[in-house]
């Protein structure tokens, strides 16, 4: 049988062979089912991603009472919009202001608020990001295209225990008339991590 997935124009790499071998053994022994794996892949590839967080931020920008609830108890406010699940039991929202810029990292592994941002991008999981963000945040942010003036305090959040952080970016100027849907379209994943400003 030929491999027609389109991902493997050449022979399988070592890691692919190992992943397939382990998957086959786990299924053969009844430890996991292929249907379960399919459902997880589908959920994280399609339904659980930064579009969820963007809806939370847009609601916060448009509804001061919701924003206050989000800052008081992130997990509960996020659940109001129907989001929750693994890595989302204790979400804390940290707000950017004209004088404070927040940015999130996990130096020990790659903790990330899955229900609102999905799975993290490769750079977030990479040694350069994890090593440098706690040591030289302003320089690294600038390198990543996010210039934070010296008079703006940078608060780095290293997610080392159970809390997962979501940055609430500042609402862009000139969007006073924008509706929630339009606002959600302006919120990027990177702004909710804190490495960009919308």
């Amino acid at each position, binding site marked *: 049988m030929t491999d027609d997935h389109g991902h493997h124009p050449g022979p399988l790499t070592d890691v692919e062979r190992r992943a397939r071998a382990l*998957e086959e053994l786990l299924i053969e022994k009844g430890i996991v089912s292929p249907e379960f794996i399919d459902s997880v892949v589908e959920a994280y590839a399609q339904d659980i991603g930064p579009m969820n967080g963007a809806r939370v931020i847009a609601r916060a920008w448009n509804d001061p009472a919701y924003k206050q609830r989000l800052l008081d108890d992130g997990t509960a406010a996020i659940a109001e919009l129907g989001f929750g699940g693994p890595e989302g039991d204790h979400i804390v929202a940290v707000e950017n202001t004209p004088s404070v810029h927040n940015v999130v990292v996990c130096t020990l592994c790659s903790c990330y608020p899955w229900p609102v941002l999905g799975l993290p991008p490769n750079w977030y999981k990479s040694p350069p990001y994890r090593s440098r963000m706690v040591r030289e945040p302003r320089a690294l942010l600038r390198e990543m295209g996010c210039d934070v003036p010296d008079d703006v305090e940078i608060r780095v959040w290293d997610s080392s225990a*159970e809390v997962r952080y979501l940055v609430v970016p500042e609402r862009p100027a000139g969007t006073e008339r924008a509706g929630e849907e339009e606002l959600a379209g302006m919120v990027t994943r990177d702004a909710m991590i804190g490495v960009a400003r919308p």
Partner: protein
Amino acid sequence: MDGVHDLGGMQGFGPVEVETDEPVFHYEWEGRTFGFAMGTLGAGGFNTPMFRHAIERMDPGHYLTSSYFEHWLTAVATLVVEAGMISRTELDASVGAFPLARSPAVDADDVEIGRRAGEPRFAVGDAVRVRDLQFAGHTRCPRYVRNRRGVVVRIEPTAAVPEVEAHRREQLLEPTYGVRFEAAELWSDSTDANAAVHVDLYERYLDPA
């Protein structure tokens, strides 16, 4: 453990490389691995600290030269072999030598559970110093804050102590705190007077300062 995973503040890794419009999974095996990892952790009763520690026990060279999902693959394979759910022979039979993580450096029986904490010992605004703890097993106290002074900025939910949960599978709940460290306290060469790092720390990591 003072492992390769404890990357905060290390130098020499170069620029952060950002891929535009990055897919959630770059290869089919990454999604499959994520899926069977989620299923296997549940089926085998492996808690998150056990899983994280399996990743931390990888050979440092392998850790630094492999992707996040290869870490997951290696950790799942290690845990199921250690638990006797799949044998090393079965794994190797299909692909040759399957690289696994090293065995834990501490014996579960030697891990002290410690006292069961009561009410939070610290309050918001308290000055604390991170204890200089040395432990060859799993911990969530990053090296770069050891011996450093900070201020409690938030009382966080009580959480299961990672040292105990990873090695003894027992859940011992303890208060955790958001602690703020000024950049200059962490890095004597820092020239940024307007930056701070917040780290979430278990009560046992902290002394009053």
